[in-house]
Structure formats: structure tokens, C-alpha cells
């Protein structure tokens, strides 16, 4: 989940302790075995199943009209959501770092609520406020707007948490120099602040996008799961499993897996870019 643009392996190892009581080789063997059993074998089963009927069957599963509609909806909603959260996430990070107000610690802790709150609870809470019994008369349940709002909730922390450390480390002198040379507030933001925050914003966007693409728990209660209308890919996969079309479910899963992998690689590239700065 977390907003960690995570790369670490290139760090130079130091001559520290050996793994206690175990040979390094044995330890490595255990790690590889654990990862294989827990992660790689299950994923391999999905990839194998997706092509069990041949590549043609794979392709027609993915490009079937209902599956395409779901995929398109998922991608478009996720794009809208990361755009919204890129803007608001950066504003929130700014307010938390540069502004000062009572209760700031609490607001800062609150940002992580979507990480801590179970997704089904997130969906249910949104439904009580924006559903058919809405006390403010705003019923958006079972519409695409509901999908966007639920995904905004779920992915809220990513951009904020990726931008905050950059904002803290940022050199204030550059801004002051620009201001003293006559640059206005917007010019300072556009020419100095924004370029410095960009790696964080992009990393946050990619992580949020990956999360939004696969989201399930927060959507099932509020989106209505109507095929061709409000059915996202994860819900489509679930319905295919339930109707016995496991190969079709696997094919769409492989598409999601491929996008996730590409995004992860993107995140580690941005992290490296940010580190080099």
C-alpha cells in the first residue's frame, strides 16, 4: 500500500552481522521458498490458466464487450481520481508542511485513515453519507460518480505522503531568491516549487493509480456493479469466477497484473530519479 517509492538493493552492503545461527545460503533459500510459495506460484497459476485455452481464447476474453467496458471504466475512473488527488494531495501536503495551525498533528495522522480503515468500511461510510438515505440529499449510489469518490478516498494518502518529505527538504532560499528578484507567487510555484515536487507527485500518482485499478472492497457496496455501466474490472473478475469462467477471469487478471508491473517499474525509476537529484 504505502507511499514508499521503494528501492533499496543498490545500496552498498556493509560487513555487518551474519544472519544469526543460519548460513546466509540457508536464509536465502528460505526467503526464496517463502516468496515462491506465497506469491510467485499463485501468480504463475493465474498466468497459466489465462492461456489454458490458447492465445486466441485469451484475446477474446480480454476484448469481450463486457470485459472491455469494465477495463475502460476502471482505467478512466482511476485517471480522474489520480488527477484529483494529485492536486488535492499536493495542497494538503503544502498545508501540513508550510502552514501552522492547532491540531496539525491530528490532521496529519488522519491522512493515513484510508490506509488503516478496512475497505469495506470505507465503502459503507461513504454510502451512509452519499447513498439513498443521505442526510444531505446527495444520492450518488450506483453511479460512476460513486466509483470516483470511493477511489478518491482509498488513494488519498499516496500523493500527500510522497510530496511531504520533498517539501520538508526543499531549500527555502531558492524561493526567497526568486521572490527578491521580483517573481510573483505563481511564478515561484511554477518555476521553483513545482519542479522540485514533481518526482514525488509522479511517484504518488503511479502508486495511487495501481491501487485504484485493483480496488474491490470499497466499491462493491456503493458502485452497484451494473455490467456495462458501473462494473469495474475487479468486480468483473469476481463475477466471472462465480459463473465458472475461470480462464476468462484469469485473462483479465493478467492484464491488470501487467499494468501493475509496469507501474511498479515506473515508481522505482522515479524514486531513483528523485534520489539522484
Amino acid at each position: 500500500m504505502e507511499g514508499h517509492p521503494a528501492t533499496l538493493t543498490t545500496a552498498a552492503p556493509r560487513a555487518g552481522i551474519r544472519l544469526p545461527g543460519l548460513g546466509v545460503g540457508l536464509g536465502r533459500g528460505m526467503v526464496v521458498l517463502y516468496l515462491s510459495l506465497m506469491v510467485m506460484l499463485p501468480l504463475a497459476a493465474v498466468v497459466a490458466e489465462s492461456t489454458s485455452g490458447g492465445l486466441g481464447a485469451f484475446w477474446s476474453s480480454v476484448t469481450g464487450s463486457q470485459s472491455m467496458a469494465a477495463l475502460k471504466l476502471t482505467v478512466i475512473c482511476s485517471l480522474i481520481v489520480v488527477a484529483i488527488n494529485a492536486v488535492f494531495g499536493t495542497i494538503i501536503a503544502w498545508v501540513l508542511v508550510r502552514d501552522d495551525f492547532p491540531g496539525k498533528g491530528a490532521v496529519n495522522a488522519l491522512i493515513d485513515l484510508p490506509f488503516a480503515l478496512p475497505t469495506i468500511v470505507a465503502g459503507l461510510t461513504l454510502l451512509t453519507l452519499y447513498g439513498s438515505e443521505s442526510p444531505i440529499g446527495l444520492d450518488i449510489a450506483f453511479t460512476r460518480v460513486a466509483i470516483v469518490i470511493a477511489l478518491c478516498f482509498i488513494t488519498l494518502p499516496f500523493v500527500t505522503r510522497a510530496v511531504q518529505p520533498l517539501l520538508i527538504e526543499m531549500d527555502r532560499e531558492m524561493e526567497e531568491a526568486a521572490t527578491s528578484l521580483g517573481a510573483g507567487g505563481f511564478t515561484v510555484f511554477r518555476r521553483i516549487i513545482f519542479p522540485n515536487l514533481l518526482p514525488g507527485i509522479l511517484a504518488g500518482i503511479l502508486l495511487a493509480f495501481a491501487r485504484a485499478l485493483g480496488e474491490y472492497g470499497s466499491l462493491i457496496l456503493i458502485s452497484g456493479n451494473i455490467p456495462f455501466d458501473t462494473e469495474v474490472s475487479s468486480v468483473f473478475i469476481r463475477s466471472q469466477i462465480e459463473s465458472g469462467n475461470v480462464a476468462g477471469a484469469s485473462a483479465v487478471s493478467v492484464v491488470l497484473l501487467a499494468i501493475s508491473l509496469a507501474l511498479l517499474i515506473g515508481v522505482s525509476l522515479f524514486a531513483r530519479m528523485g534520489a539522484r537529484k
Partner: protein
Amino acid sequence: MTAKWGLRGLAFGYLGLLLLAPVGMIFYKTFEHGIGPPLEAMTSPDALHAIWLTLLMVAVAVPLNTVFGVGCALLLVRHRWRGNAVIDGIINLPFAISPIVVGLSLFLLYGNDGWFGPTLAEWGIQVLFSTPGMILASVFVSLPFVVRETVPVLQEIGTEQEQAASTLGANAWQTFWRVTLPAIRWGVAYGVVLTTARVLGEFGAVTIVSGSISGETETLPLFVAKAFEQFNEEAAYAGAIVLALLALTTLLLMSIGGRKAKAQGGPIPITGDAAISTSTSNTKEGS
């Protein structure tokens, strides 16, 4: 000045409408008619079983991933190996994979027609639609947290103290327990909190592998979903409140753990509370 208030307004407005108002609303809905109805809903046999099963998931998945996480972090940071980059990449995978795909993958391995399902069934081991499958799902989705939180702390503390300990005659186990573990404990603790939160709330993966049988394979999140779908709103809200309270406890622990990890010289944790409150400059926004 206006810019400052404008930004504040946007930030607070967004957080209020998206986070605070809905969460406040569900608390209101639950306790609308006093504490009696939710309490009653939560003490039904199915609800109690769901709570028990959820805690069981935590009790098994969290220790497994903690031991793996610390060991794996030590290997990644302290021992150069060309396989490390691959291991590192695989560890990140669960962050990016849809829980539904995780559920499907386990279904394909352990189902009746799965790779391992038939063999295990011959040995009398039922994985799918029972506890082992749900544990596997929980382990999968929460696998990265301890590794991700421990690695930066390990990199930060260096090896001087460990070398001193071993020069003074401590063996590897003693060095690990007396020197390394105390030094990384807040990073590990932070990872454990995140792992626990993820396991407590996991829905998508567990929903596929569990079959969601009331009183048997139903965790608390599944209980909430089913109660809501059966128009038993009282039970759904009550279950959601229990989970929300657990989440708020998690936030509190994250906030404390983050501060301690920071004080220990670790990197800025994701909830960089301490980092933010201490580093805010004394210069006010002037523009």
C-alpha cells in the same frame, strides 16, 4: 494571506467531505438508538465467531510475515547478492496487485481442479473455503510491510555497534538479540502495525477463498458486507464500528511508532508526524 486561507480551506474541505463527514456519519448511524442495538448485534454467535476468526488471521499471518520480514531485510541490506534486486521487486508485488487477483490465484492453486488442491484433498487437507486458504490470502496481501519498514532502518543504523559486539566476543545470535533488534525495533514495530491493519481489514482476497460461510469462514469485514446485503443494517454498522475503532487505534500506534522510528534516526516514515511538526519553519507564508 488570502492564498493561505484559500489553501487551508481547500485542504480542510476535501478532508472533511471525503474522510471526516462519512466516518462521523457512520458513528452517528450506529449509536442513533443508543449502545444497546449495536452491542446486541456484536454479541450474536456469528458476529463473535467473525471477530474470533479475524483475530486468528492476525495471530498467524502477522508473526509469519514479521519473522520473514526481518530475516529478509537483513539479507537484502547486509549481504550483496545478484538475486536481491529480484527479491526486492517480488516483495513489492502485493502492493500493486488487486486483492481479487490474489484470491483467484489461490483458488487456482488450491481449488478442486487446482495444481495442489486434489493432492492436498487426498491427504485430508482442505485449504479453500476454510481457514488455511484465508491465512494464505492474508499473508499474501500483507507480506511487504515489515520488510519495507525494516530495510531503511537497518541501512541507517550501520554496523559499527554490531562489529563492536562481535569483537567483544558476542556470537551472531547474541549480537542480533542484544544489538541489532533493539536498534531496529521501532521500524519493525511500525511494519507490524501496518501488517496487522491490512490483515484485519482484508476483504477482496478473503472473499474469494473463504466462501463466506456464516459462523465458519466469515471474518469481520465479510460479516459487515453480508449483513449489509441482507438489509441487517444494524449489524453491518456495528461491525463497521468495531473495525473503524481498530483502525483508529492503528492510526494512533502508527503516529507513535512513526515518531519513535524517526527519533531512532530512521527515515521519515509514511506518517511523518514528528518530522512535520518539528520541521515546520518559523517563517510564515508571506506571499
